[in-house]
């Protein structure tokens, strides 16, 4: 069975292997053992509420319970830009017009921005290749939304994700080559790595501070601004389906877009429902297609667990859990659980008779 749970100290080896296989481009999880160890320890402090809420780093592992192995990771950073400065470019338009001469020119312009400061970020998504498909990526990503809503006091009203920008097979970024490289005396991968290691004063020191007028950049660079890397396109579509929108900010290095949503507007949250667990004896075939399954979470802050379950297990007030699922979630009969669709379509609808999620579906009924 595949279960989401908080990342633990003994996941280090698995995490390091995943980071190594992921290659470049994942700045929040570089393949650096020491750094990963720090991140795990930071996440442990967070789940145990031993660090300030705004400093929280929530990292979840996807565990294959048969193999007792972490095969995926995803995270939420409670607030960005509090320790380090968080930079983006804002893609803005400058209009210059002369009525007298009948000239009207719009110039897309990049302004250095720290506007995401103090906002919660969903980050660090990584899934082992052998586990890709079958809805595992959706589970890894969407489980976070249930957590965000259940513990919304720990997070901002709005949440965002930075999407990886365009680069080629060799990791060359057209925007970096046209812009960053002219100011930073290094390769894209090196800048990306430095930034991922949390060393950002070099950005304050070397970054151009005045706005960049896009017509002065080559077509190849302009073309990639606010566009995502081919590998990231499915992730973007998933977030768009959740109600995330491009907010006008892009990555300062590769031009990848930032997408954001109000937590209460995220579809997983709007379409989720609460039930009480009812542990049953009868065995259930868990191995059904992703679009017939729902996510089920134990709503625990310290030991958040999520797995999937066939939709037909949902009853009017309860959800039937076979013992192994109840075990994996660490719940007993009568405990509250939260359910949300795993795949796009609103197939959960027909199973719902009553919704008790605050800010959930009922608000939209008409």
């Amino acid at each position, binding site marked *: 069975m595949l279960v989401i749970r908080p990342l633990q100290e003994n996941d280090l080896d698995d995490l390091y292997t995943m980071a190594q296989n992921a290659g470049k481009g994942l700045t929040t999880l570089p393949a650096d053992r020491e750094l990963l160890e720090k991140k795990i320890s930071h996440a442990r402090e967070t789940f145990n509420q031993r660090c300030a809420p705004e400093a929280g780093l929530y990292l979840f592992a996807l565990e294959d319970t048969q193999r007792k192995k972490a095969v995926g990771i995803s995270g939420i950073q409670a607030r960005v830009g509090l320790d380090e400065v968080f930079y983006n470019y804002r893609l803005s338009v*400058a209009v*210059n*017009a*002369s009525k*007298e*001469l009948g*000239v*009207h*020119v719009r*110039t897309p312009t990049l302004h250095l921005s720290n506007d995401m400061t103090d906002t919660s970020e969903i980050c660090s998504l990584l899934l082992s290749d052998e586990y890709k498909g079958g809805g595992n990526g959706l589970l890894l990503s969407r489980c976070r939304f249930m957590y965000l809503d259940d513990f919304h006091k720990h997070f901002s009203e709005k949440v965002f994700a930075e999407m990886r920008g365009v680069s080629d097979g060799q990791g060359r970024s057209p925007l970096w080559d046209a*812009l960053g490289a*002219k*100011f*930073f*005396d290094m390769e894209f991968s090196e800048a990306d790595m430095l930034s991922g290691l949390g*060393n950002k*004063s*070099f950005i304050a*020191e*070397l*970054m*151009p501070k*005045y*706005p*960049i*007028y896009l*017509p*002065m*950049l080559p077509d190849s660079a302009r073309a990639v601004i606010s566009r995502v890397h081919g590998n990231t396109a499915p992730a973007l579509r998933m977030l768009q389906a959740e109600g995330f929108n491009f907010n006008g900010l892009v990555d300062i290095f590769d031009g990848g877009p930032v997408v954001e949503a109000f937590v209460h507007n995220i579809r997983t949250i709007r379409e989720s429902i609460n039930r009480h667990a009812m542990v049953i004896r009868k065995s259930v075939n868990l191995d059904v297609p992703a679009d017939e399954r729902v996510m089920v979470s134990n709503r625990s802050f310290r030991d958040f667990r999520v797995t999937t379950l066939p939709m037909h297990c949902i009853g009017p007030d309860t959800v039937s859990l076979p013992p192994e699922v109840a075990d994996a979630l660490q719940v007993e009969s009568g405990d509250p659980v939260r359910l949300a669709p795993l795949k796009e379509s609103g197939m959960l609808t027909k199973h719902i008779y009553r919704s008790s999620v605050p800010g959930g579906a009922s608000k939209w009924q008409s």
Partner: protein
Amino acid sequence: MWLVRPAQPDDLDQILAIAGTQSARLSSTLPKQSDALAYKIEHSLASFAGKISTEDDPPRFLFVLENTGTGEIVGTAGIDARAGNGQPFYNYRRDALIHASHELGVSRRVEVLYPSHSLTDNTLLCSFSIRPELRESDAFELLSRARILFIADHREWFTQRVTVEIQGVQLDSGSVPFWDSLGRHFFDMDFETADQYSGQLSKTFIAELMPPNPIYVTLLSEAAQEALGQPHPMTVPNFELLQREGFQPGCYLDIFDAGPVLEARTDSLRTLVTSHPKSLHAANRDLGETCLIAAGERDQFRCTLTPVSETLEDTLKVPVNTWKVLNKTAGDRVRIAPL
């Protein structure tokens, strides 16, 4: 003989003919339209007559170079008493920031062009044009330097510093690398059109269309970067003449073609420093060192080249022919400067 004198309404057609044969860059201060030019001549005459205040619409002087033998006009030169003529005078100021990271051991000089109005209200030499065949002649020098003699005799009309813009790089194809890399994106017109508009009095369109933020040089095209502060090859004689006069290129560039903007302290201009007032006397012979000679106040100003056979403490002996060209007679005050 060659004579420099204030432009007159009758010169209009001949000046238009010169403006038509000149390169584009000239147009920013010498209009190619008959109406605009007629107004410029009229305003110039009022300026020479001392009827123009410096506040709202400051004096602008237009001189012509005349072949007194034929009456033909073969060149023009101007002075704007206050650059910008009561509005901002736009330049880029070329400067650099140091982007350095102590920790990474990196230090990089980042060149930046800042929009600047710092030269606004300096006295400006402008509208210089001359028939191509005269470009290497003494007449060329006469036309350019006559203005300095005019300034010397009307010093109170002008400011402490004098500025002059030199045409920047333009390829044979007519394209201007700096414009193509920068201005074109914002003004949405070709270089000639922009240049033409900038000769008009209202600079509103520049305030409306020019990008207000500093420009990073490294983001310009290579050709544009190479053109920064470079004079057009055609202007080299003029550039050199002005440098001999004491003008120095500083950190300012033209906003359209990035041509160099030269500056000098008015009171240090070579022609001004080396010129002397003398009283006019007759020479018997047409021989001697050729000098610049100027006479006449305000709209009576005349300047020509003359052989000087003898120059004493306060007197100057020149051929009577020179007197005539200057409209002066024995004992009148003139100003002389070595060529």
